[in-house]
């Protein structure tokens, strides 16, 4: 007898519809799975057999063949367990064929028949089409986000079989308590002093500029970076869905509502492998940190300590907002539009006030050379972050809370989007000339800087982009927000003060 059950597998952050065909026929008793199962999927044999027996059903003593169609792509993970079990039970005529009409099954089985959460329920449910998904109870939130149909849940194989036989109703689909309570984003009010770094953070949030912080250990670079998501507006519908798919595919804990609305914050350690950072691990091309930070912030502390290969891998996504992962057997396109925040020490010893550095030139050069090149060009904002003074640290009054800053950021972002349809960080070439006009005295200052050789051509573009954002923030605050006004001298001066030369420790000529 034959059964064919709809289910799905995962590649990157998208699902692949899979039909689980089960044939039970004459021959030596045995159980085979064909159709490119990966090792985890092949181990389904043992899990499914035990789960079926634990659920009080019989395991057929015949030749059981399972085909996972289409047979081309690799089938990943344990998500097909439930569909295989249901297929075997139907093919062995322990349940009538009509009971599974219009249903699809996703979930991993335990030996005791329990139904477990698998990564990627959201993208898998999204590709099922005109069937109602049956998913593990723990995956209800993400399934609800992705499905247009009625979602059914169960927490054991027994419950599924009972409901299919019509003996008992489907368990109620309620959002379970396992979903993570969202950790509150740390508030900017905790940051004492450091007016410059706060300002840089606000500008980065308002313009979408990538931010590089250069400062000694203990100057609060990590603390500042963690507070950037709190300044960003909630994700739009499209970004939110994309982020949800990626988080689901990576098996991350999902927020209570199932939908990732808050801009994510990811801070991979510098020993993170290139694959883990960029994506493409395992046969399912698991999303990397850059995709997990889609729509949010990717924070790379100790930027120079990352391997050059890992940093090179960031260049394409920074350019295109997606990462194409290709392997011999599969390729996937994963979303990867993130705001890059990086931190580095000025030199190996950590630096500090002038005269406190103890590094020799070779060590310093080796350290800064790792940062140089095209990646460094991406950072519109390169801010020197200094340790706050003791007075500021002991001062009881905190700074402005995130909510106040976020309100200003939202106004400035709206100005930019209304003007050019994009954030200021994405203004290039003609768009920059069109939308970032400089007042006469501002232009004179930049001309002077360039003539002195203190500002390069690329630096000129960066300063204009940042100054545009500063002007937007200023005009937004003044409520004169047409966003079309010229960039004024003050805006340019602030933008100039927010860029530090990485190699500025080389002693300048005296007199």
């Amino acid at each position, binding site marked *: 007898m034959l059964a064919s059950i709809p289910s799905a597998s995962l590649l990157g952050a998208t699902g692949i519809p899979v039909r689980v065909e089960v044939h039970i026929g004459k021959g030596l008793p045995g159980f085979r799975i064909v159709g490119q199962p990966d090792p985890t999927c092949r181990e389904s044999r043992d899990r499914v057999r035990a789960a079926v027996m634990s659920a009080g059903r019989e395991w057929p003593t015949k030749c059981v063949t399972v085909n996972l169609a289409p047979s081309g792509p690799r089938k990943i993970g344990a998500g097909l367990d439930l569909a295989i079990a249901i297929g075997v039970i139907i093919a062995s005529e322990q349940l009538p064929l009509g009971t599974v009409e219009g249903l699809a099954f996703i979930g991993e089985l335990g030996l005791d028949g329990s139904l477990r959460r698998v990564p990627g329920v959201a993208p898998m449910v999204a590709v099922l089409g005109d069937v109602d998904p049956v998913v593990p109870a723990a995956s209800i939130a993400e399934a609800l986000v992705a499905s247009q149909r009625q979602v059914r849940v169960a927490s054991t194989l027994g419950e599924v079989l009972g409901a299919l036989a019509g003996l008992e109703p489907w368990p109620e689909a309620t959002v379970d308590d396992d979903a993570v309570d969202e950790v509150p984003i740390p508030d900017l009010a905790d940051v004492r002093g450091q007016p410059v770094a706060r*300002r840089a953070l606000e500008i980065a949030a308002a313009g979408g500029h990538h931010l590089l912080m250069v400062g000694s250990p203990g100057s609060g670079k990590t603390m500042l970076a963690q507070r950037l998501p709190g300044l960003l507006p909630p994700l739009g519908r499209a970004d939110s869905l994309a982020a949800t798919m990626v988080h689901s595919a990576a098996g991350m804990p999902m927020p209570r509502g199932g939908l990732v609305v808050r801009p994510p914050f990811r801070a991979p350690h510098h020993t993170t492998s290139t694959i883990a950072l960029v994506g493409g691990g395992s046969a399912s091309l698991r999303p990397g940190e850059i995709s997990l930070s889609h729509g949010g912030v990717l924070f790379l502390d100790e930027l120079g300590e990352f391997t050059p290969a890992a940093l090179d891998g960031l260049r394409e996504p920074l350019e295109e907002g997606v990462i194409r992962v290709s392997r011999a057997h599969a390729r996937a396109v994963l979303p990867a539009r993130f705001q890059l925040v990086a931190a580095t020490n000025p030199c190996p010893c950590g630096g500090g006030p002038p005269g406190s550095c103890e590094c020799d*030139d070779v060590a310093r050069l080796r350290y800064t050379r790792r940062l140089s090149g095209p990646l460094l060009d991406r950072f519109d904002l390169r801010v020197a972050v*200094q340790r706050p003074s003791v007075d500021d640290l002991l001062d009881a009054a905190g700074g402005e809370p995130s909510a106040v800053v976020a309100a200003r950021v939202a106004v400035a972002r709206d100005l930019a989007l209304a003007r050019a349809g994009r954030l200021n960080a994405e203004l290039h070439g003609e768009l920059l000339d069109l939308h970032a006009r400089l007042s006469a005295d501002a232009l004179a200052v930049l001309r002077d800087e360039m003539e002195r050789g203190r500002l390069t051509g690329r630096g000129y573009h960066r300063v204009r982009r940042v100054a545009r954002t500063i002007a937007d923030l200023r005009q937004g605050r003044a409520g004169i927000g047409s966003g079309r006004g010229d960039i004024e001298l*003050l805006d340019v001066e602030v933008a100039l003060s927010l860029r530090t030369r990485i190699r500025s420790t080389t*002693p300048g000529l*005296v*007199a």
Partner: protein
Amino acid sequence: MAILVDATGTLAALAGLDLMTVARLHALLDHHEPDEALAVAAGRAQPAPPVAAMMRPPVAAAWRASAARRDPATLTDVCRHAGITALTARDAAFPAPLRVDPQPPAVLFVRGDLDVLGARRAGIVGTRNATQSGRDTAFGLGRALAENGVTVVSGLAKGIDGAAHRGALAVAAGRPAAVVGNGPERAYPRVHAELWDAVCERGVLLSEWPPGTPPEPFRFPMRNRILAALSEVLVVVESRERGGSLITAQAALERSIDVLAVPGSPRNRAAAGTNHLLRDGAAPVTGVDDVLVALGLDTRRTAAAGFDPRPLPRGVEAAVLAACRDDPRTLDDVVSALALPMAEAAMALARLERTGWVRESGGWFEPVVSWSGR
């Protein structure tokens, strides 16, 4: 007796032998003429008994092997091309202060004019990782001393040394002397190549090491003893708790040469060593007069302060400059200390930087002192 010009190549060959030390070179040259000494080292001639006692098998083998590689004729060409002459203590031109030194160099390789050392001499040394203010001070001292006809002796290193030399060269009549720790034909650090050439052209550059010697770390402390010996007073401008300039100061004290130190802020780590020297009894340098007095020179000859072409800062800029006066400040410090809006503080600092009152490095703003040294 006068050394023939040809001896330069021979001495360069000798001084560059493997396992050659200053003591061994002294012994060789004390008992043999240069040509004979090279033959002894190469195993072609019989060593004098004291030299024979010193030439233990590994030394003899290393010398024999490396002597084959060091051709005096080639080295003569190299030296002539670079304008280098070699002197030993037997030579009349050998600097007098080194002649009486307890640890004199056996051979001295010279580029430039040794007469420079006939004037009064003051050494200026300090850290390589100097602050802007330290470099300004060294520059000002170098210039003021050169204006008073004093030869500035320093090491051509980065930071303080280079600034002192630049200061001395900023005066038309300035004729600095430099003692370096590698072969005299190749500039080290390379960013000082122009400075190096200027010193050779207008002053003199000395080295204990023959052409082709790389700048290895152990050579610099040895170089420092010659630098100290050539100074009549030694000024340490900036130095860390442990630094090469403190080795120079120690070498100066051993030779009863006065050590002076420029006081620095206790918060400036680059001044920890100099402040330590002051606590131990070094004389403070508050202006070039202190150095001139230490040299026993008449300080009344110094001219009036020069004209400062920088426009005087007013208003906010003056307040910002005042805030940066004592210690290096960040933009953060200025904003919090003066309770200014960031735009205004940034603008004031930018103007001050453009007019030359402050200089930025790594986010720190340091005042630029027009240090006339008075």
